[in-house]
């Protein structure tokens, strides 16, 4: 079976000259849940931003669901990749929770009634339907995160990308999120500093170091090999 995500020699340098990625090789298959570990500044976020073309590599190739990353494929790729950003405040910009959950669907050209139905279903999936009429800015951090996830799930992506999803979540909320992610059938790429969260949600892990993947294996192996459980940064 062809991999859902396939990256070969992906390299990226920020305009200010920072070499953030120096040749990433990675394959993710459907249904897999891959954890990205690595120190601050190792390049995890930079890599994830490539998956829906928000950043475009200068060198290397990337295909998503068989589609090569190029401008003509961007819309199709973004339909397949659901991206949950680190700061939910950046992702929730519509006046109400329901409108935010429907944002992507309407952009896809769905009829408003259809979009509303799917958005409500996605909100129910993350247990936030009760807040449909509220302003996203008044929600708690954990609730915002779930609404952001709903806005992505509503679009029924094949791949979920989550950049440090446990940021600003208390332990019960982290637990709830891990459970929710476990129930979702999509392939997942999750960057996290939280070893326990990674173990709860991942089937496999890779370790980033200065723009490269330096190791891969089961989540337990990676956590042990790189001493990540005792990691001071959280």
């Amino acid at each position, binding site marked *: 079976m062809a991999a859902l995500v396939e990256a070969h020699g992906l390299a990226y340098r920020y305009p200010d000259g920072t070499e953030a990625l120096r040749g990433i090789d990675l394959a993710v298959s459907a249904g897999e849940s891959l954890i990205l570990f690595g120190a601050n500044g190792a390049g995890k976020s930079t890599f994830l931003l490539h998956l829906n073309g928000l950043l475009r590599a200068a060198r290397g190739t990337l295909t998503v669901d068989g589609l090569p990353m190029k401008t003509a494929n961007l819309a199709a790729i973004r339909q397949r990749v659901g*991206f949950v950003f680190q700061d939910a405040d950046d992702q929730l910009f519509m006046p109400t929770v329901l409108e935010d959950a429907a944002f992507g669907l309407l952009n896809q050209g769905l009829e408003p009634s259809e979009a509303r139905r799917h958005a409500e279903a996605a909100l129910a999936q993350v247990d936030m339907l009760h807040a449909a009429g509220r302003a996203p800015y008044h929600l708690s951090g954990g609730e915002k995160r779930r609404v952001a996830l709903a806005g992505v799930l509503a679009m029924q992506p094949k791949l979920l990308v989550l950049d440090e999803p446990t940021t600003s979540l208390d332990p019960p909320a982290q637990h709830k999120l891990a459970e929710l992610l476990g129930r979702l059938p999509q392939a997942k790429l999750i960057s996290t500093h939280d070893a326990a969260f990674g173990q709860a949600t991942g089937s496999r892990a890779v370790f980033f170091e200065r723009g490269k993947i330096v190791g891969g294996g089961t989540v337990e192996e990676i956590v042990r090999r790189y001493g990540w459980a005792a990691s001071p940064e959280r």
Partner: protein
Amino acid sequence: MRHLESDQWSRGGSALHRCDARAKLAAVLTVLAFVGTARPWHWPQGVFYGSLALAALLAAQLSWAGFLRRLSVVLPVTATFALLTWLSTGDAGRAGALLSRSLVSVAFAIVLIATTPAHALLTGAERLGAPRMLVAVAQMVHRYLFVLIDQALRMRQAARSRGGFRWSAAAGAAAALLLSSEQRATRIHQAMLARGFTGTWPELSAAAGRWNVFDSALAGGTALTLLLARLLWRL
């Protein structure tokens, strides 16, 4: 991130709230055109357009406090102009006309804004033929304003927690504010692109964009009433 209060305000449940933004926009533009061209403007004109504004206000079921607060924002400006007119020409009637004319216009604008969310209003303007580019820019400014306000509040909080906030030091902070807002806006824009944003704000409420009899009645009725009043009584 907090939305401007007016955005919350514009989500009431009155019949006017449910009207198509284009109908409301057309009606208000018509009123403004008639108010602007009413010559002479004496007390009958003031009473006529004033009661129309009152009717619109009642139909919109707005809170008086909210309405007056918004009106009071423009009152000092128009009052100053009226006062200057009075002092320089000695014509109290003309000053009064200036004041009542602008207050009536502002009242209608407030009702329009208060019954129509900003993005619906802008989409309506676009459908009525406003240049697409202009509308897109206005929408961005409207969104960006929240980012700016929110970022300013965060920074003030951060400054306070580190030993107080002084507006005198705020000038230096303004540059930092613009920079951090710009970064934040970039991230928001990325998040929008990630969910397929194509440059037009999508509209969820099915009522928007579906022009019904009520909308025709509002837009047409307003124009007809004003035209008749003008022809029959020179209002």
